[in-house]
Structures are given as C-alpha cells and as structure tokens.
C-alpha cells in the first residue's frame, strides 16, 4: 500500500513539476520545478527497484545537470531579456498539440495488453523457459529465484540492490537470466565495451563543449543580418 501511495505522490509530483516547468515563465523557477520533477522521477526509480539508477538520477540530474542549467541561466540572464514571453497563441497551440499528443500516448498505452506483448516477445537469448512471465514478474519480490543457476552463481537478488547486478551485467554475467540452459555461448552480451566507447565519445563531446563554452565575444556582429 505504501508503495502505491508513494507512487501516486511522486507521480503527481513528477507530472506536476513538469507541467509547472511548462507553465512558468521565469527561467529560475522553471529550473526549480525541473528539480522537483526530476527528483520525483528518481523516487519513482526507487519504487521500481532500480536503486542505482535512482541514485544516479539524483546525483547526475539534480546534482549536476540542473546546477549546470542554473549556471547557464545565470550566465545568460545578464541582459534585459531574462524573461522572454511566449505569445498566447503559441501557448494555446502548444497546449492543444500537447493535449492531443498526450491523448494519443495514453490511449495507446491503454490499448496495449502488455502481458500479452511480453509473452509474444521473442524468447530472448537466455530467457528461462520454465518461468512464465508472471512468475518472473514476481521474482523481484522473492529473493533467491527458483533458478538453480542463479543460486549457483551466488547472486542474491535482493529488492532494489541492483548495483552488483548491473556491474555484472556490464561484464556479461546476467543474474536475471538462465545462461546455462539457454545459451551455448556461456555469457550474454556485456555492456562494458559499449560503455567504454560511449565514455570516450562523451569525453570528446565534453571537451568540445568546454571549448565552445569559452567566453568570447563576437568581433563582428554585423555579419548575421547578411546571413538571414
């Protein structure tokens, strides 16, 4: 029950925060509401037993990204245009389109029978054959899954403690899968290499960003009208 309650609280907070971001005109306030929304999402992650992800969300988003955003706000808000108004027509149109989109999405979500979809999913390489979707769904609740292999691996799947599992899955060891029966390969695909590659990429991107962000005034500002 508490879980339900928490869900609703945070769900409302997340959605409300998001709506507030949209509705607010002041950038600083928008940033605040964004923090609220993102924090709520982190809470939702906890509820979804993704502890590590939730923590990462808090650290990176709320602690990093949003601070960065605020910096941006401050750096750019020195001029007279701190508040840039949107025309009412645009707001109305935007709201209408948003509503429609929301309607489309919600109706889609409602129309899909997710259990059936999960059944129809292709037998992912190591999906345990003897465990049906419902059972599997509950596996999160019950420690020590019925799979002997999981036991053999010494993985104690505890509620929300996903750091170790995520780390192993990065190496290709999947506690949530039956690797013995399902795969002749021994190991599932790991994420370590992609992660490293992405890390390098991102590093490059960040260096590029730092380069771009260097404060330098345009010397010739008259060129822009010609380009338009």
């Amino acid at each position, binding site marked *: 029950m508490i879980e339900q309650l928490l869900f609703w609280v945070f769900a409302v907070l997340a959605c409300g925060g998001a709506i507030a971001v949209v509705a607010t005109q002041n950038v600083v306030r928008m940033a605040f509401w964004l923090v609220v929304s993102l924090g709520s999402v982190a809470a939702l992650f906890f509820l979804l037993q993704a502890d590590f992800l939730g923590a990462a969300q808090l650290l990176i988003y709320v602690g990093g990204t949003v601070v960065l955003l605020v910096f941006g706000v401050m750096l750019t808000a020195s001029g007279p245009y701190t508040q840039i108004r949107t025309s009412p027509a645009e707001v109305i*149109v*935007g709201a209408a*389109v*948003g509503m429609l*989109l929301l309607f*489309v999405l919600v*109706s889609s979500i409602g129309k899909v029978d997710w259990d059936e979809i999960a059944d129809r999913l292709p037998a992912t390489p190591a999906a345990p054959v003897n465990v049906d979707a419902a059972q599997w769904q509950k596996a999160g609740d019950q420690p020590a899954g019925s799979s002997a292999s999981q036991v053999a691996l010494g993985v104690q799947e505890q509620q929300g403690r996903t750091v170790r599992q995520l780390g192993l899955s990065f190496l290709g060891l999947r506690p949530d899968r039956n690797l013995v029966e399902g795969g002749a390969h021994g190991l599932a695909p790991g994420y370590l290499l992609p992660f490293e590659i992405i890390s390098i990429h991102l590093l490059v991107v960040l260096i590029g960003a730092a380069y771009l962000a260097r404060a330098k005034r345009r010397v010739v500002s008259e060129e822009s009208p010609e380009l338009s």
Partner: protein
Amino acid sequence: MPQTGDYLMFLLTTAWLLPLVGFVIEMYWLCWSHRLSKGAAYFAVGFIGAGFVCSLLALLIWGGATGWSALSGHHGADAGHHAAAHNDGDHAEHHADDHAVAGHATEHATPVKKYYAGTYYELARFGSLRLSLDWYIDSLTLVMFTMVTFIATCIHLFAIGYMHDELTEEYEDHEVHMHGGGHFSRPGRFYLFFAYLSLFCFSMLGLVLAGNIFQVFIFWELVGICSYLLIGFYIERNSASTAANKAFIMNRVGDFGFLIGLMIIWTSFGTFQFADTDSHDSPEAGLFTMIRGHDGRLDVSEDGKQVYLRDASGHRAEQNGQPRTITYLLLVAAGLGVFAGSIGKSAQFPLQTWLPDAMEGPTPVSALVHSATMVAAGVYLAGRFYPMFTPEVLLGIAYIGCITLFVAATIALVVTDIKRVLAYSTISQLGYMMLAIGVGGWGAGLFHLVTHAFFKSLMFLCSGSVIAGCHHVQDMSRMGGLRHKMKITAYTMLIGVMAIAGLAIPGTSIGFSGFYSKDAIVASALAYYELNNAHFLLFITPLVTAGITSFYMFRLWFLTFAGQPRDQHVYDHCHENPKIMTIPLIALAIFAAGCAWGGEGGPLFRLIADSELVPAVERVVSVGASKVTLPSHQGHDSDVHHVHATAGMLALISAFIGMGLAYLMYVQKSIRPSDIRRQFSSVYDFLLDKWRFDDLYEVMFVQPVHIVAAWCVSFDRKVLDAILHGSAKITVLVSGWDRKFDETMVDGLVNLVGTVTFSIGSSLKVIQTGRLRQYIMWIGVAVVVLFGALITAIPK
C-alpha cells in the same frame, strides 16, 4: 702489256677529262685569281689544246695499228681491212684479259670493221641488267675527237679576243635598258665563259666517246645544259634567257622521243651497249651484234614482222628454247625514237626554231656549240646508231632532212642578221647530213658533218670578227665594203662561203671541202632516186637547195664585205681584229678549204667510212612496209659510183647559178632585191616570219600547256580543296546541329529538372522558417496525425 685499245682509251679519256678539270679550275677562278686575269682562258686553251694533242696522238696510234689501211686508197672492204681484222682477232684471243674487244671472229665471209670498247665503271646492276659508263672507240670516234678538239682550240683562242671586253669590273651591256634609263652594268664574267666552254667540251667529248646509248643520253643532256648556259650567258638579257629556255625545252621534246627509244631498246634487248662485252666465260652481245650479227644484215622473219636477235657469236640468240626476237614495228619505233633526239639536238624540222634564237649567245658559242659540234651531235648519233635503223626509219630521216634543208635555206634568203643567216644555213646543212644518212649515204653524211664543222665554224668566227670589229652590229644592211678594212676576215670568210657553196674548178676534181661532201650527198640521193623513183623529192630538193645555199651565202658575203658602206658610222669605227682572233681564222680556213682533199678517195672520207658497220657494197632491199631499196655505195660497181659524176656536175651547176644570181643582185645590182621583195611580198613575209613556226607552236603547245597548267591549279583549288573544305564545312554543320541538339534538348532537359526542383524548393522554403520551436511543434502535430491515421486506418 698495254694494248692499242688501252693507249687509245687512255689518250681519249685524258682528252675528255682535261676540260672537266679546266672547268673546276675556271669556275672558281675568283678564289685564286682576280676578275681581270686572262689566266682562265689560258687554262681552258691549254686543256683543250692538250686534248687535241692527245686526240691526234690517238689517231696516229690508230693509224699505226691498222697499217694506215684507211688511207691506202683502196675502195671497199679490201685486203687491208682483212689484215687489220685478223691482227686484232689474234690480239683478242691472245690477251683475254684485254678489255678491248677488237674485231671478231675472222671465219665469217664478210669481215667486220674494227673498234675498241670497254667499261669505265658500273652505274647499277639489277639482276641480269647492267648499266655502266663505257667507251667505244672506232675511227669515227677518233675523227670526231680530233675535229672537236681542234675546232674548240681555235675557238677558245678566238674567244680570248672576242670576250676581251668582259675583262672588266664594270661591263656595260648596251642591249639591256634599266627602268631608270641608262644601261645595265655588271662585273665581267670572262672566267665564267671559259668555264662553261670547258664544261661543254667535256660533255661533247663524253658524248662522242660514249660506249652505250644510255651514256650518249647522259652526255646528250649535259651538252644541252651547257648550250643552255652558253646561250644564256648574258643572263641579264631577257631575249638570251628566253632563247636558252627555248633551246633546252625543245631539246627536251626531242629527248622525250629519245627516252622512248631507250625504253624500247632497254626492254627488248636488255642492254644499252654498242659493243659486245667481253666477260670471261660468256661474251654478251652488244646492240649492234644483236641486230646486225656479224654480217651486217637484219635477220627478219618470213612474214616481216619479227627480227631475230643474235648472240655474241653472230648466231640467232635463244631464250628458254625460243629464238629471241623483237617486233619489227618496235624496232622501227625505237629507231624513230632515237632519231627524235637527233631532231631536237640538230634542230631538224619540226624542232628547228630554237637554233636561230640560240644566236643570242656570244659568237664563239655559236661557232662551237651551235654549228660545229653540239648540233652535229644529232647527226653523229644518227650515224653511230645507224645499224639499228631499218629502211623505214631511214626513209623518215631522209624526209625530215629534206624538209629541213629546204625550209631553213629559204628563210636564210631573207634574213639580214649575219649570225642568223649562218644559223639557218647550219640547219640547212644539218638537213643535208640527215638526208644523206637517210638515203644510205652514211659516209657522205658524216663526211659532210666534218667538213661543215670546219667551214661553218670558220664563218661564224668571221662573223664574230665582223661583229667585234663593228662593235656589236649584226645587221648586214648596215654593213658593206668591209673587205677594205678587214682583209683577213673578209678573205677567210670568202673561203668559207665558197666551201659551203661547194664550188670547184669545173672539169677537175679540185674544189673546196664542201664540194666533195655535198657531191657525195647528192650522189647518194641520186642513186637512191634511181632505185626508188617515188621519192624523187629526196633528190630534187637538195639539188635546188644547193643553188639556194650558194645564193644566200654569197649574198651574205657581198652584203657584208663588198660594195659600198651603207652605214658610214659603222664603217668608220670598224677595224680588223688582233692576231689572237685572226690566226684561228686562218687555221680554220686552211682546213675548210682542204680537209676533204681527195674527196671520197681521200683520207678523211676513208677514215670515216672505215667504221661503217653496215655493208655498203650491195643494195639493201627493205622487207618492211615501205618498199625501198638502199643503194650500194662502196666499190667501183656501186650505184653511187655510177651516178657520181652526174651528181657532182648538177650540184656544181646549181651552185654556180646561185652564186651568179647573188652577184647580179647584190654586186651588179642588175636585179633589184627590193623589186622581188615587192613582187612576192606575201612569200617574203612568210619567210621573214620563219614559216610562222614560232606562232604555230605558241598556239599549239605553249598556250595549251599554260592553260592546262591553270586547269590543274584550279582543279586543285576548286575541286580537291573544295571537297576537303566541303567536308570540313559539313562536319562543322553537323557539329553545329549537334551543339544545337545538346543545347536545346539535353541541356534543356537537365535545366528543366533543375528549374523544377528549384521552384519547388523556393516554394517550399516558406516552410523553412528556421524557427526551432515551430519545428518541434510540427513534429508533435505530425506524430499525432500519424498516430491518428494509424489507429483509424489499421483495424484491430
């Protein structure tokens, strides 16, 4: 051990090549001496004089080798010849390595005459065909050599005096008028004149010495070019260079025929050699042996269409088992072809017109080249090639000669230029020689050739003396009475005139050289007429012309030397020439008077007749198309001998009539020439226009050639080039279309696509507002619409 032939060859070759050395030295005279030096002339005289000595020596050696049989006074091919032939036959057998083929096998009934021949070097060899430079020496060669070198020496000497005014840095030519008025002047070209003369002597001697007909052709052309150079010596005179061109081109017309003759001979006989070649294993027959064998007769097949060729042994030659033959008509054509060359060179009808124009050259040239030697080369060739002529060819030769001698003599009647009179008389006399050869009087023709060379060169030199004395006045109508001032010239000239007129003391056989030779010709003609009555013109014409000749020659002498001066100015400035010019006159006059001493029994005639290859003791009856019979002319029973006295008398009468008429008209003045001129004005004009040959040729040949030439050029330009240009234009046109197609169709299509794309783009660019938020909005709208469509369109 050197043989007679080697001696002869060595001497004559020396005589032949010395002038060439002289030519090179004189040509580059300015490199080692100066313009005013007479040295070049002395070189020239020295070399040709040495040549004369060599020739004379050769003649003496020849005489020694033949035991002077030619001069022994016997008639016909008698014992002396037999002995000579025997001797030489032995030589040939004993000395197989001797190049000279001397005589031939002695077993034959009729022994042949003797000659020496050999090869200098080979020009080319193609399989069995061989071209070489050869020498061929018989008595005719020797006589010609001696005659040419002697006359040339005299004329060289004379020229030293005559060309004296060229010894200057500033020679003023009074006949050339410049644009700005005044006369043309140039540095003198004394040395050059003698260089040309030397080159001519070399060519002429080479022609005489030639041992094959091809070599004759080579030197034939060379004397032609020398003649060209000498006629055109005064290169600044347009008339001179035109005359030189005319001479060479007309000669080339004759050479065209000559060349055809050569082609026939070359293809039919495969050799050009006169004499047999003495290769060690198999002697090859020369042309004369091939066609005449050893007995001097044509070997004609029964139907008269083929002539059998002989091999070196005198038997019928065989090739692949078949007897070698030549079509009779082809042989006639070859003969006529070669004779065409003679027509050109000897200025016979119809190519006679160049010779009078050639008088543009200096007078010594006229004397040497255009009377004594080169023009006589045509006669020499006809004589040398006589064994190859069939009776039909001879008949043609006779008629050509007959026409020529008459035409030229008639023109000479009216001409007043002293050199031109002599020129026409030269043509006329050459006609006599041709006629003689044509009627079978081979010896008579060549006899006349030699005597004529002497008296005609004498007369030319005399006229040159007159011209030099009168300061280049040539018109006889401005002369008269010159005998008082130029005694030597006048009386040597008189000797020449009497010689050419053929005068003699009636009743005796003492006369000038021309009497004997002309006598021989008329006798041959009469004998021929008696055997072939149809051809009476061949006798009447020379007889009448003898009178005409006498008339115009005496006319010349009377007009020039006798009577009163007609132009006092000329007369006053006239003077006798220095000794260097008169001595040659005297020397020549002696020979002109006496070289023919003894007539047909005399040494000269006998020497010439010695080399006749065709038997002369019997009649030759033609088997060809024309039924002619050639008279026999050797021996006491011969046809010619029978009529000799009659002919001599007739010719003498004719000559005296001519002389008398001239005396009456120009000295006695009992008949006034102007009356006759008026009476026969049309004939007079016709003659004065030289029978209008020049006009005829101008219309018939010169103009058409120019017209055709213009056609050719315009064909090139208007047809060939037009085709090229047309195709080029068509190509350009097609490529123009191509370009248009490219521009309109292909480019248009591409442009259309471009334009359409562009206009669509520019109409769509309105949407591209560049506003980020709008795009996002559109994305949202699009997602909604797509989903809506998806959901509504796809049924569950």
